């Protein structure tokens, strides 16, 4: 009952229970008091009656007049509660009885005082006159009056209880409204808040008591929550807008990127195609040029052989010029072919010993450059990861150049070494004390057919450094040069170190 059910019902129950208990206790106390007092009143009334009758029966006893005694007793007929009455004479023997001729059994001898039985009140009254005891009056009254009173009181009590209960219900309904109404209003408001998350509702305030203050506090709390909720919503909205904006910006960037990538890819593809076409074109041109050139040279040689004795000195000199020009052209074509091949052939990466590679190259150069005074200074070099054939081409070109441009120096000094690491790559340099060049032309060095010296001064096709750059770039590295006119040049290449590089700086 007190665990479940509404607050109103509990309040009602408390009021009714309290009033009911109070009523019951009051009624009970009153009834008990009344029964006790009524019993003694009953005994007192009976005693009074007995005294009157006893006084009237003195003469009958004194003068042994049983008829008179019976007549006196017969007066009890007017008192319906008197069930039996008797007079005993001074010797304690039955003298007269009431009702006459009844089958009621009387005590054999008189007693004293009064006593309540289950259904009767028994009383003995001495009959005396002038202090002389003449006999005893015996009265037996039924408790009809008592029970009648019990019934009357019980009925009245129940009626009062029921009426009080009804009045209590009515009063409590009216009174508890003052208490339960604010609480119910609070509960309803709280329900709305928790169910609909509507923080704008307010509980109605009914009174200035603690409940009123509670309502105020609740409303204040709601206002606070509402304010916080509003600010949270605003922040969330702002955040949402920012996120949307950022997403849109990212989308734009993505679209731009995609466009850029697409365009780069398109360009790259176009460039590749153009490059391939160019290379295949230059290859076929170089290749196709060699056959007629070989014919020219062959027939010039045959012509010289045939006219050996008849040729004038001038003619012979012309023929030699034609031949050397043809040889030079053949060299040019070979270089072009090699250059174009470098851009096409598959690379095979493996560990390459630079010491070994450079040693072989120097050995080859020494044999072809007899009579030159060259000082080689080669530091021990680490192993690198590269295509061996291509790397051989790189150092052949670099060292050939160094030898070529130190022609006027005696002695020529050529240094090869490792400068250290640039990121994960070794920096290898080849330095000479040759002719050098102006630094403003440093970038032009690596272009095809780009020459800084006249070919009369230093022979060459102008393809070597282009080939070097091409190979190094294909290996993912870079190449650059530093120089000063007349003071020598230094060429740098970066190469991927082998897995366990022997660092020597």
């Amino acid at each position, binding site marked *: 009952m007190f665990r479940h059910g509404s607050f109103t019902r509990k309040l009602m129950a408390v009021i009714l229970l309290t009033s009911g208990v109070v009523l019951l206790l009051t009624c009970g106390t009153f009834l008990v008091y009344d029964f006790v007092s009524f019993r003694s009143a009953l005994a007192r009334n009976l005693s009074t009656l007995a005294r009157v009758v006893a006084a009237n029966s*003195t003469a009958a006893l004194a003068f042994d007049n049983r008829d008179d005694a019976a007549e006196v007793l017969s007066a009890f007929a007017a008192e319906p509660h008197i069930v039996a009455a008797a007079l005993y004479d001074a010797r304690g023997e039955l003298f007269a009885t009431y009702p006459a001729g009844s089958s009621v059994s009387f005590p054999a001898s008189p007693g004293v005082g009064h006593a309540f039985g289950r259904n009767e009140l028994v009383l003995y009254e001495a009959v005396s006159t002038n202090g002389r*005891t003449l006999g005893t009056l015996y009265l037996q009254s039924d408790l009809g009056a008592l029970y009648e009173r019990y019934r009357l009181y019980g009925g009245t009590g129940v009626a009062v209880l029921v009426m009080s209960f009804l009045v209590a219900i009515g009063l409590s309904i009216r009174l508890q409204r003052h208490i339960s109404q604010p609480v119910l209003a609070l509960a309803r408001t709280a329900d709305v808040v928790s169910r609909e998350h509507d923080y704008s509702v307010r509980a109605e305030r009914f009174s200035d008591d603690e409940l009123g203050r509670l309502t105020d506090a609740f409303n204040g709390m709601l206002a606070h929550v509402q304010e916080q909720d509003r600010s949270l919503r605003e922040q969330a909205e702002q955040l949402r807008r920012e996120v949307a904006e950022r997403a849109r910006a990212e989308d734009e960037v993505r679209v731009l990127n995609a466009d850029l990538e697409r365009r780069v890819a398109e360009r790259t593809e176009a460039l590749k195609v153009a490059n391939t076409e160019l290379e295949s074109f230059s290859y076929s041109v170089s290749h196709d040029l060699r056959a007629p050139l070989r014919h020219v040279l062959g027939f010039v040689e045959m012509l010289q052989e045939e006219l050996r004795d008849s040729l004038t000195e001038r003619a012979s000199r012309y023929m030699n010029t034609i031949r050397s020009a043809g040889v030079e052209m053949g060299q040019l074509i070979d270089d072009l072919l090699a250059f174009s091949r470098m851009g096409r052939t598959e690379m095979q990466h493996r560990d390459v010993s630079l010491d070994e590679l450079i040693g072989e190259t120097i050995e080859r150069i020494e044999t072809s450059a007899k009579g030159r005074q060259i000082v080689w200074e080669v530091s021990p070099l680490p192993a690198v990861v590269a295509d061996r054939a291509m790397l051989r081409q790189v150092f052949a070109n670099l060292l050939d150049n160094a030898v070529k441009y130190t022609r006027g120096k005696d002695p020529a000094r050529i240094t090869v070494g490792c400068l250290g690491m640039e990121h994960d790559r070794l920096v290898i340099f080849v330095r000479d004390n040759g002719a050098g060049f102006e630094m403003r032309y440093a970038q032009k060095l690596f272009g095809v057919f780009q020459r800084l010296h006249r070919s009369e001064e230093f022979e060459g096709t102008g393809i070597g450094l282009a080939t070097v750059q091409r190979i190094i770039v294909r290996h993912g590295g870079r190449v650059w040069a530093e120089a000063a006119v007349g003071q020598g040049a230094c060429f740098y290449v970066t190469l991927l170190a082998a897995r366990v590089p022997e660092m020597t700086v």
Partner: protein
Amino acid sequence: MRAIASLLILLVGASTVLAQRRFDERAIKATYLFNFAQFVDWPPASFADDHAPLVIGVLGDDPFGRVLDDVVAGEAIKGRPLSVVRFHRIEDVRACQILFIASASAPQFAAVFEALHQRPILTVGDAADFATAGGMVRFVTDQNRVRLQINLPATRAAGVVVSSRLLRAADVLGAGEVP
């Protein structure tokens, strides 16, 4: 006091028990004479003073003997002791409250009542015409019981007040008469 009361009850009881066992007319009448003292009021002038005894007189041949003396011995009514006085002739009757007139005096009733006229003395007798002749209380013996017959006008004329309770227990003559 309580002990005395108990003793009295015992005495009265003993005498009446005796009367009951053998119907002793004398004893009953003696007791009744004593009992009259309790149910009859006399004018104060009939006593010499407040402590004067209440006297039961017996006129003529005394039928009671010691019995009456035994009944009243030691008794007191309303602070007055009781005494028994015997008279031979009506002229001898002095101050007394109850006077038993023996049946032997029957022929002289008229003279006796004439002598007692207006005196506050309760006259008692057992002659058949006692009450009708002017006596106040008559013992009527009937079937082993002694009943009373009271001449109310006579008592009133004598200034003797008989208790209504006594009247209840007796046959009353001239009840309707106005004194």
